């Protein structure tokens, strides 16, 4: 094996009342890669990442993270091993300050070290451009800024694997550009798994793209080759 796989799933499946939301997915994510996960609505993308980070228990199959079988671990333990997850629907601590929001993310690693926490919070907020708003209440931010805060909370954890569930949804165009820069910056630093609808973002940031359809992996290609994949086109455009 050339590159070490940070994340591997084998036969990962989940059904809801007889319907397979995710079916028999074998998935490998090498360390350091930026991977985009795309697919039409209802393809099972969010369920799949839910299975990865433990929000949803698997019906069958296994998840390996960093060489360790984490299938049986609850979400918080997987996060503690170095995953970070940002929610598709913004989920922040609305009544707490931005600083405290990010500090909660940073603190778990630097237990008791106030200086390290301070530094980590500053760094994470600066990276998303919110450093000057640290004292504001998170609930007072605009929607776009809340999305950025969400990403900052992901960064603040200094994860080995950062899972971003539709991070650019609702962002203005200029903010999307900033986001692209941010992700490119992260490349090499951390492994990123990105669920994204905006093909621009996908093409500009991802090293590899995995396409899900009806809960199964339809294709796994580089951005360059995926445009020519007729199966993907069919899935997206509904033509045969």
């Amino acid at each position, binding site marked *: 094996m050339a590159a070490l796989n940070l994340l591997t799933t084998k036969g990962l499946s989940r059904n809801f009342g007889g319907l397979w939301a995710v079916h028999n997915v074998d998935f490998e994510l090498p360390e350091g890669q930026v991977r985009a996960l795309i697919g039409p609505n209802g393809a099972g993308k969010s369920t799949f990442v839910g299975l990865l980070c433990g929000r949803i228990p698997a019906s069958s199959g296994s998840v390996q993270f960093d060489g360790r079988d984490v299938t049986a671990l609850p979400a918080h*333990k997987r996060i503690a091993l170095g995953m970070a997850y940002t929610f598709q629907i913004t989920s922040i601590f*609305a009544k707490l300050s931005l600083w405290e929001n990010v*500090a909660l993310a940073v603190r778990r690693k630097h237990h008791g070290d106030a200086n390290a926490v301070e530094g980590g919070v500053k760094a994470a907020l600066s990276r998303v451009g919110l450093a000057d708003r640290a004292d504001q209440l998170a609930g007072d931010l605009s929607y776009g800024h809340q999305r950025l805060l969400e990403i900052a909370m992901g960064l603040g954890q200094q994860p080995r694997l950062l899972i971003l569930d539709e991070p650019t949804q609702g962002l203005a165009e200029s903010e999307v550009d900033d986001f692209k820069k941010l992700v490119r910056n992260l490349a090499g630093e951390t492994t990123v798994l990105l669920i994204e609808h905006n093909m621009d973002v996908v093409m500009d940031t991802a090293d590899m793209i995995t396409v899900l359809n009806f809960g199964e992996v339809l294709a796994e290609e580089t951005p360059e080759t995926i445009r020519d994949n007729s199966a993907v086109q069919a899935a997206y455009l509904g033509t045969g």
Partner: protein
Amino acid sequence: MSAAAKSVWLHGGVITLLFALQFVLPAYHHGNLARIMVLAVYAMGYNMLFGYTGLLSLGHALFFAAGMYGLGLTIAFLDFAPSPALLSGIISALIVSAVVGFLALRTTGVAFMIVTLMFAQAGFLTILLFGEYTRGDEGFVIQQPERVLAGIDLTTPGNRYFAALILFSVCLIITARVVQTPFGKVLIAIRENEDRARMLGYDVLRHKLIAVIISGTMSGAAGAAYALLFGYVGASFAAVQYSIFPLLWVLLGGAGTTIGPLVGTIFMFYLIDLSSGLTSAYMLIAGVTLVLLTLFARQGLVGELRKRALPWLP
């Protein structure tokens, strides 16, 4: 001034004020304040769970009673001296809250309220069932000679006040300290957004369980202290009203504020004390207060103060 420094000044100030008050208050209010401080400890315990962790329990009387009977029964039947009896009360509350927490935390929201309510009701009935030992609703008296703690006679007003003040101060400092620690911040995070806290890698269940135990133990300490300072142990303290009272005090004073429970307890005590002269149905006033609070001041007195004027209040 940093938030931590402000917190030290605020809590130091409250304790100093309470210390000073004993020299100027007339006898009646002096006695009341001693009682209020003990009850405020109960409210602070409740606040740890409801105010800071966001879990609404309707069964805290069980913890209060665990402390009270843990002390009272060991004095009555095992001839414990007050200090080991006090310890026994606190440990009883700790064990009861750990068991209740372990079971009840499998539920959330309304189910959690009802489960805690049912456990407390079962506890109350158990006290009645073992009436031979507990004397049921009638309860029993802890006589004066059994209330001398480490050579200090807790039946004199001055000593009683001082003992109540010490217990109150210790619990206030614990509360103020806990909410400043990373652990306390996680509790607040759980209150604000449990799912998010979990997905930041925190063991939500474990944090909640510890919060239940701190909360229950503090409530139990209040129950034990109440029995020791006022000399009576009885089942009425385990009944459902005594689960509602701390909720009322905390809501009134301000949930999730360190001094709210004290403020709420004082306010409610005097509201009832003064209104009982006006009307025999003074619980009516408690009812109206509850409804008005939910309608117009969800944050309570200190909470509204924090919202409008002093955002730094811990």
